[in-house]
């Protein structure tokens, strides 16, 4: 008993072929879009690789790129097949290839679905990478004359300005590291000497932040230094002041940016997957409808199309049988080869 049988007459077959041709070329465009999205995500991850310790995983964009390219190629071929389907002579040369081709399509769609799920689920590793990378970045902020780290100050400043964030989890992260290089400290000043002596590791720690943490929405000029000392600034209370600096940490800001990017890409890829599955199902129906044309001389006759020739359990049993036969045929050949030289030897 065939699965989901549908009757087709000539007109319906022609309509199906034409509709499928259009749907397949639209799927090619959609596959190109998925490819482009993967490229975009890869470029975005590369741009911020400095604050991700150069250890970020490129699995998601690579999966999108591969799945998009595969989907493009498969659907371009399917479009060509649908175009030829209306002419029996041209369709004849595609006939032997259609079964393996449909199997390849099924695998391709599984890959696309996996890529979409990756997009939506693989966020945890990004958070850990960002936390580590930003911590390193903040530590190297002052090393503007160390080769290999001299760009870190510029990177962190531009990051904080663009993403409207300050520090790793908040602006207090800047209080725990020395972000002013010793080159610019006046060691003859008493204040500097006291601060360094009072610190166990001999670091110059201040309760201040770099200028890139400043919030332009604040009504007063930015207060960057002596942030916890209310008496240092007129009419200032550090516990109620909210507009002076950016309150969000850069880890949360970057994570939300990449999350929203990957969420929208995942949703779009799922939609593309749905349309691809529809196109392949239609192609299967067209294939079986054309195969089951009982009289090849009469193109006007009706035929039936189906998804699977037998029901699902029977198809699965037949598939396992064919696998076993494949194994057995190898065995028989081997025994035959053994039996061959043996009588000769004996």
């Amino acid at each position, binding site marked *: 008993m065939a699965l989901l049988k549908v009757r087709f007459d000539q007109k319906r077959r022609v309509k199906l072929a034409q509709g499928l041709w259009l749907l397949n070329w639209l799927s090619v465009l959609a596959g190109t879009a998925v490819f482009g999205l993967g490229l975009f995500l890869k470029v975005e991850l590369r741009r911020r690789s400095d604050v991700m310790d150069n250890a970020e995983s490129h699995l998601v964009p690579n999966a999108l790129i591969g799945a998009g390219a595969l989907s493009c190629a498969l659907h371009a071929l399917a479009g060509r097949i649908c175009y030829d389907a209306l002419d029996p002579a041209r369709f004849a040369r595609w006939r032997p290839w259609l079964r393996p081709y449909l199997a390849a399509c099924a695998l391709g769609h599984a890959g696309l679905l996996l890529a979409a799920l990756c997009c939506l689920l693989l966020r945890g590793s990004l958070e850990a990478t960002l936390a580590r990378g930003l911590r390193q970045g903040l530590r190297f902020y002052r090393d*503007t004359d160390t080769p290999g780290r001299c760009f870190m100050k510029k990177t962190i400043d531009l990051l904080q300005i663009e993403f409207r964030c300050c520090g790793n989890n908040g602006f207090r992260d800047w209080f725990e590291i020395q972000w002013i290089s010793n080159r*610019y400290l*006046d060691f003859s000043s008493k204040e500097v000497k006291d601060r360094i002596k009072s610190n166990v590791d001999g670091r110059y720690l201040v309760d201040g932040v770099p200028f890139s943490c*400043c919030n332009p*929405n604040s*009504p*007063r*000029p930015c207060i960057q230094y002596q942030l916890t000392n209310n008496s240092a600034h007129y009419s200032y209370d550090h516990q109620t002041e909210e507009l002076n600096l950016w309150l969000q940490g850069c880890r949360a800001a970057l994570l939300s940016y990449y999350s929203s990017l990957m969420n929208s890409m995942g949703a779009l890829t799922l939609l593309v997957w749905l349309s691809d599955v529809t196109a392949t199902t239609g192609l299967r129906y067209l294939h079986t409808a054309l195969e089951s044309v009982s009289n090849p001389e009469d193109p006007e006759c009706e035929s039936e199309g189906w998804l699977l020739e037998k029901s699902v359990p029977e198809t699965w049993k037949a598939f396992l049988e064919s696998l076993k036969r494949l194994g057995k045929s190898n065995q028989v050949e081997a025994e035959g080869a053994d039996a061959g030289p043996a009588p000769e030897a004996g």
Partner: protein
Amino acid sequence: MAPVLPLALPPRPRVRLAQGLWLLSWALALAGGLTLLCSGHLLVQLSRLRTFLAPSCPFAALPQVALAAGAAALGTGLAGAGASRASLDAAQYPPWRRVLGPLLVAGTAGGGGLLVLSLGLAAALPGSLDSGLEEGLGAAMAHYKDTEVPGHCHAKRLLDELQLRHHCCGCRGFKDWFGVQWVSSRYLDPNDQDVVDRIQSNVEGLYLIDGVPFSCCNPHSPRPCLQDQLSDPHAHPLFDPRQPNLNLWPQGCHGVLLGHLQGLASTLGSMLAVTFLLQTVVLLGLRYLQTALEGLGGVIDGEGDAQGYLLPGGLRHRLKMAWLQGGAARRPAPGEAPPEEAPPTEDPPEA
């Protein structure tokens, strides 16, 4: 009297003319669309920089007129494509026959007029940007501290964001901030002797400092940003006031914005020039096609040679007649004076 600029159009060249016109009309539609996009972009940029441009600066008129001119060119291009396509097909031409005359007049007068006006504006207006930007930026800097005055409360945020985005400081340079009180009196401690001294030493009672806001800081500098006491060489260790370039942004916002807006205006001007040329060619071609087809009586498939022209013959004569008749009506006529001119001669058929 002979028609103006006649051109013989046998059937084959007529078809070629129609086909060439179809291509050029689509090119005109594309150019009109691009002009629309360009002027829209300029309009969006200007709306974002509205605070920094003096209200008296007429520059905003350019993108608005260019928008209308681009839309007119797009419409002319689409109509021209439709008309030239129809002129190749006998069944489709009759409805276009009636529309073509008014279309040509509208295209020449309306579209052409708008394009010429916008070209003129594109040539003349960018000169007014210099003083407009100077006035606008000066006013914004003066209102930087007025974050609680209605009407000016956004000046600080907008100016900070401008300096951060365009990488500039002050109007012509960072020293402009030394001449403006950018710290609001609300945040000045009246008991601080230094503050009192500064205010008293200033003629207008302003609190002026040799410091700049944080948005002037340059992230490329190797040392943390130095914002205050910029004229004092001993205030910061190892700081050389003769070389402040890496510490703050060196260029002023006036130069940056002027270059940006003038670049956009010159791009728009070149787009308008290309559109104008295309529109002239398309309208001329349509006129010749129209008059040639009218010469055949509106029958497309006719094999006869037709003559296309710009303006019909005898136009000058008829204009003179109309002028004289108008003059005679204005003069108090004592009686029915017979017309002095002979009746007009036979004119070639005119659409």
